[in-house]
């Protein structure tokens, strides 16, 4: 009898289903980012946009997992963490590829974005990275001010919907600046690209506060970047072993 129960428990424990994403709460109160980002915009951005990306990703993963026409090996991809799924989009059938690129990307990008924001400093100038991250920024861009200028220019000039990213480039192992369209994420282009900081430039990220004035949003963004968190993300990056 006991053996049967044990076996049943083991059997149930081994039953896997696809990954099911959950909505992480904001690390601070919705109004903590005022006046740079209003409580209203945070509620819309987190509870509506982020929430919708999560739901649509979960729906796509579920559909993929129960799809009887799909190859068993490919289905295993649906059980992986979202970051890993997004590095393997190219092997998926079209109907899942796009749904996961859009919504899975949207989920990952927003999960990341909300984690790197904090209450605004009084001025832009007083909010800066330090230590290893600052050294790496200076190595890639000359000075922090130059990086700030380039990142801001790229953000203001990006046409349509997209993001601007600061990430460790997979090939050179240096910090680089780049943009992606829509909800694309640098890991979709190389699984070893390691994102350190980013800004959401979809109109929904700033319209309720800044309307069409994206430059004003970008200028104020520098007051809410949590460099402590970003610094930790940078420090925790996988280090390439020189003997490989």
């Amino acid at each position, binding site marked *: 009898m006991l053996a049967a129960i044990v076996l049943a428990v083991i059997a149930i424990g081994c039953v896997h289903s696809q990954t099911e994403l959950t909505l992480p709460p904001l690390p601070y109160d919705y109004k903590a980012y005022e006046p740079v980002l209003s409580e209203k915009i945070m509620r819309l951005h987190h509870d509506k946009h982020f929430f919708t990306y999560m739901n649509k990703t979960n729906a796509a993963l579920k559909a993929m997992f129960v799809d009887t026409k799909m190859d068993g090996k490919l289905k295993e991809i649906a059980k992986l963490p979202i970051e890993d799924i997004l590095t393997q989009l190219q092997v998926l059938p079209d109907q899942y590829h796009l749904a996961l690129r859009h919504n899975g990307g949207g989920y990952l990008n927003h999960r990341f974005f909300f984690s790197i924001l904090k209450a605004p400093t009084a001025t832009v100038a007083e909010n800066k990275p330090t230590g290893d991250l600052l050294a790496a920024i200076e190595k890639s861009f000359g000075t922090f001010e130059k990086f700030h200028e380039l990142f801001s220019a790229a953000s203001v000039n990006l*046409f*349509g*919907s*997209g993001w601007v990213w600061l990430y460790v480039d997979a090939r050179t192992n240096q910090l680089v600046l780049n943009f992606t369209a829509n*909800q694309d994420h640098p890991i979709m282009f190389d699984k070893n690209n390691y994102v350190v900081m980013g800004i959401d430039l*979809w109109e*929904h990220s700033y319209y309720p506060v800044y*309307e*069409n004035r994206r430059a004003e949003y970008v200028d104020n963004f520098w007051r809410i970047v949590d460099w402590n968190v970003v610094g930790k993300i940078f420090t925790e990056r996988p280090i390439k072993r020189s003997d490989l």
Partner: protein
Amino acid sequence: MFVRICFLAVIISCIQAQIELTLPPLPYAYDAIEPVLSEHLMQLHHDKHLQTYTTGANKLLKRMYDDENSSNELKGLTNQSIEFILSHIQYLPEIYQVGLKQYGGGYLNHKLFFSTLQKPTATADENKPTGPLLKAIEKAFDSFDKFKQIFTDVSLEVFGSGWVWLYIDAYTKELNYSFASNQENPIMFNKNHITLLGIDLWEHAYYPVYENRRSEYVDNFWRIINWPFVSQLYTEGVAKQTDDIDKETDGIVKHTGGCPMHAGI
């Protein structure tokens, strides 16, 4: 066709500078589209977004004209209508193509968009096209309701910034729909496409009223389409024979009187 463009461009460039786009006023008051589109949204959309596209397009056209590397043909092209420039976008150097698709496209798309809107009807159902346009829609899509369903579905599927367009192909005279990303317009893909109607799906087009609720915006969009005006565009569009499109080009050449420098051509 390209030879004709070069010829006309060479003639034009002797006389004039690049075209300068102006901000077309709204054909109605800012609050005319309430409550579907608020006065504030119309002010932002027209006075800010369309203005930015106008200024940006003009800057690019001026740069293209002033660029000492630009051929005479290219300079001549900058003096044409924005529709003409965009329908020949593939002849532009790549450095100008991207910017003109963005800002020139933005200008053209918004000019068209605002001209096809009207005061909302009480319900979506009561606002329908009639006459030849309705017949053409029924021919291409089976029924107006089917067309409406397809157009709505595609509008909800567009990811990121873009438009959904209804257009006629001047050769086949058939109606078709397409979706475009950013500020692309059907004429950028075929100069004989004639755009009749579009829905702006950039978030700025609906966010101040509908926030993230795009489907509510799309549902209400059917109340504000000016079908009589769209029908007019349709009638003019089908009447345009492809020979006429080429004749327009020749006509421009004749009216400019030519240029002594290029008498040998």
